[in-house]
């Protein structure tokens, strides 16, 4: 009965969304405020029913209702409660339901926090979000109903894919989806602005905090995915340039470009058409990501359950969204005029270059991701593009981007000069060269050019951020009032950039100085690596709730002193008979030790064992957390809460408002 109610709630949600996506939009076009006012209640009702559907599915999982096909395929009576809940989004149908719910939550967040938004803008934004919702609800109801019954009911479930029985998976998809779907909000703002013809600084100011928050979720979602892959897949890698990872990284790159371009649009009334285009691309890429993950066209670690027919639906939906919004853009773009003029050396130029580099990076990653698909579709052979391609494209593009970062944050709007910038920044340049070099020479085992470039760039980010922070305070008399009056947006920016520096240290030093070795060890034998000695003591059998495991015991010592006892496991899950590697990790700020069991090699108890020493790997995730905190700070700037009040009176279509700053 409950699953049928869930299904029914989903159908009701679709019905309400049909109203939400049409009446407010028509009302906004005809200036009918009664029709526009429908945006709020329909969005709320949609959330209610989508939530009920989600609750019904969760209940089916918790109560072991194996008469529901989706539950029977992805759960088991021995599955612990937390994984029964996370299993709701462990496969295709449920993750779509989570998508729809997330979209509904974002829509309502807009309704809730944008009280100052003019009604016609709100109506259009909610309407556009409704159109996106229709796509997802229809997709679910037509091709992937999570409530489908299994007749006769299964005696027990087939269990959740063991890879997914993990805390990381419980949180990674919801975070990532909050980010993916969150990009629909700046998209909706861009479409609404084009519909109304009102593309001004106020629009950019409304859109900015939403973009920041979506970007924060996306950043955390990707970082969680990377962390999960690191400790759960047992390969010890943190990024594989896997198509699906790329699918989440592409919208991130474009969203990052969008954040920077929105700053110019808000402050200087420039880059308007470009900003709109970025908003469209960012959301389109997150739809493309969903398509790539769910259509089964790619060989990927993420291609768990795939179905090409669903891919066709998403492809059509994707074409409608991209085609429709680009058509609207082509129609409206000639009317958008950017009024902010600027010189060659100026903050605008720095941000323009930032955008060019980020977009070119995204384009080359997109090329590497889709090229195999293209060749396959044209029957030119089956190929794969390996990580070296992505590295050799990504790294040379990122280096100028980071060098530019320091110049950009110090440069003035409109016009600046190289001599002034150099005058302010030369101490930071010298400092980063010295400290960067010293870091590698003193703290690391050997000199590597790549490592030095990485540390210099990272220190450059820190030191130029410090210089720009000091410059911000220097024209104030007293420290505390100056600190308090500095807007949160500035703190946020500085913090996010520091996160970038920390991240650079992490990826560079881990990539260059990691030591990895697969070896054969019998109990009692030991192996020396870097300054650590790994000794295999024993391997014994232990039992978990739904698996049996061989648990190794390794004593790790450094200079004869025991520093850790590590217990990696090799699990066999009872239902799916699938072996799983549970690595043991000794984490630290300076290095991680990573031990995973391979297989038993002979009757005497010799095992193949994988040993890694990974310097600075924690800095990767630490950096992303700092970036995300920076984004949150920036989004909570006072300016955005005030934003609506200043610009309450609607401006007639086509009017260009000059930037206020």
């Amino acid at each position, binding site marked *: 009965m409950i699953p049928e109610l869930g299904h029914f709630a989903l159908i009701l949600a679709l019905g309400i969304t049909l109203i939400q996506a049409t009446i407010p939009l028509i009302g906004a076009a005809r200036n009918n405020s009664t029709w526009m006012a429908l945006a709020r209640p329909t969005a709320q009702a949609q959330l209610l029913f989508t939530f009920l559907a989600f609750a019904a599915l969760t209940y089916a999982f918790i109560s072991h209702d194996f008469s529901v096909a989706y539950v029977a395929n992805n759960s088991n009576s021995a599955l612990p409660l937390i994984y029964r809940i996370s299993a709701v989004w462990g496969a295709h149908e449920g993750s779509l339901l989570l998508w729809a719910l997330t979209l509904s939550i974002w829509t309502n967040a807009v309704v809730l926090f944008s009280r100052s938004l003019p009604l016609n803008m709100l109506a259009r934004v909610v309407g556009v979000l409704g159109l996106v919702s229709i796509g997802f609800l229809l997709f679910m109801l037509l091709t992937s109903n999570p409530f489908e019954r299994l007749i006769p009911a299964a005696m027990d479930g087939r269990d959740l894919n063991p890879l997914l029985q993990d805390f990381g998976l419980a949180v990674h998809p919801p975070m990532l989806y909050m980010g993916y779907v969150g990009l629909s909000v700046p998209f909706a703002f861009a479409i609404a602005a084009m519909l109304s013809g009102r593309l001004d600084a106020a629009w950019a100011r409304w859109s900015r905090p939403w973009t920041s928050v979506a970007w924060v979720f996306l950043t955390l979602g990707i970082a969680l995915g990377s962390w999960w892959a690191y400790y759960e897949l047992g390969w010890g890698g943190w990024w594989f340039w896997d198509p699906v990872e790329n699918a989440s990284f592409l919208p991130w790159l474009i969203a990052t470009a969008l954040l920077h371009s929105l700053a110019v649009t808000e402050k200087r009334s420039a880059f308007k058409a470009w900003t709109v285009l970025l908003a469209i691309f960012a959301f389109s890429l997150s739809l493309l990501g969903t398509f790539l993950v769910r259509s089964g066209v790619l060989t990927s670690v993420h291609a768990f359950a795939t179905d090409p027919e669903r891919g066709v639906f998403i492809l059509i939906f994707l074409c409608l969204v991209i085609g429709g919004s680009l058509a609207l853009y082509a129609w409206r773009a000639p009317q958008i005029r950017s009024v902010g003029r600027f010189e060659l050396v100026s903050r605008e130029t720095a941000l323009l270059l930032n955008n060019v580099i980020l977009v070119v990076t995204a384009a080359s990653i997109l090329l590497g991701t889709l090229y195999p698909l293209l060749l396959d579709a044209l029957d030119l*052979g089956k190929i794969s593009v390996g990580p070296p391609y992505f590295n050799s494209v990504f790294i040379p593009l990122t280096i100028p981007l980071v060098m530019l970062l320091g110049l950009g944050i110090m440069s003035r709007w409109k016009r600046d000069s190289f001599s002034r910038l150099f005058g302010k920044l030369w101490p930071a340049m010298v400092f980063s060269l010295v400290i960067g070099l010293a870091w590698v020479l003193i703290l690391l085992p050997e000199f590597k050019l790549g490592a030095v470039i990485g540390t210099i760039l990272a220190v450059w980010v820190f030191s130029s951020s410090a210089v720009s922070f000091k410059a911000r305070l220097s024209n104030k008399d007293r420290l505390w009032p100056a600190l308090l009056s500095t807007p949160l947006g500035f703190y946020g920016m500085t913090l996010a950039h520091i996160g970038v520096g920390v991240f650079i240290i992490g990826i560079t030093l881990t990539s260059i100085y990691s030591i990895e070795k697969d070896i054969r060890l019998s109990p009692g034998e030991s192996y020396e690596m870097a300054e650590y000695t790994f000794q295999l003591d024993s391997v014994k059998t232990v039992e978990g709730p739904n698996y049996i495991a061989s648990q190794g015991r390794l004593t790790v010592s450094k200079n004869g002193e025991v520093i850790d006892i590590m217990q990696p496991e090799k699990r066999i899950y009872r239902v799916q008979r699938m072996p799983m590697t549970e690595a043991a990790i000794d984490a630290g700020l300076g290095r991680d030790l990573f031990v995973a069991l391979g297989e038993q090699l002979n009757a005497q108890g010799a095992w193949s064992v994988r040993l890694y020493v990974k310097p600075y790997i924690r800095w990767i995730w630490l950096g992303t957390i700092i970036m995300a905190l920076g984004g949150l700070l920036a989004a909570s700037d006072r300016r955005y809460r005030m934003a609506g009040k200043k610009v309450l009176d609607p401006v007639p279509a086509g009017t260009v408002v000059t930037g206020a700053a």
Partner: protein
Amino acid sequence: MKARHKRLGFLIVGLAVLGLATFFVIQALDSNLSYFFSPTEVKQDQAPKDHIFRLGGMVEKGSLERGEGVDVLFTVTDNANSVQVLYSGILPDLFSEGQGVIAQGKMNTDGVFVAEEVLAKHDETYMPPEVADALEKARQAEAKMDGGTTP
């Protein structure tokens, strides 16, 4: 600075960035593509001799042998032809005999494929599309030959 000069400046900077990026992209793509070949194609000498490629098929039952240290030797087959694969390291969790596998590496002079990387399927129902395709091709070729010999 005149507006015309300024525009020229932007144009040059933009083109330089774009040109540099295109150069990296083309060079990187060129040296990092790896094509997929089935054992039959390898036996017909279609696979490159000195460039890495991907070999895919089923792990032949009973073919897995362990050597020194963590070396393993196994046979990949598309049911028509087969190729021996040498790998040094820990095989992925889902690697097993009678299942689909993709290995990336090079042929050595003895006709053994030396793998740098071994990828196995990710759950029991998933089959890499390339492998499914290769098996199907080999099956069809076999069927054609059978059709030719039976009167």
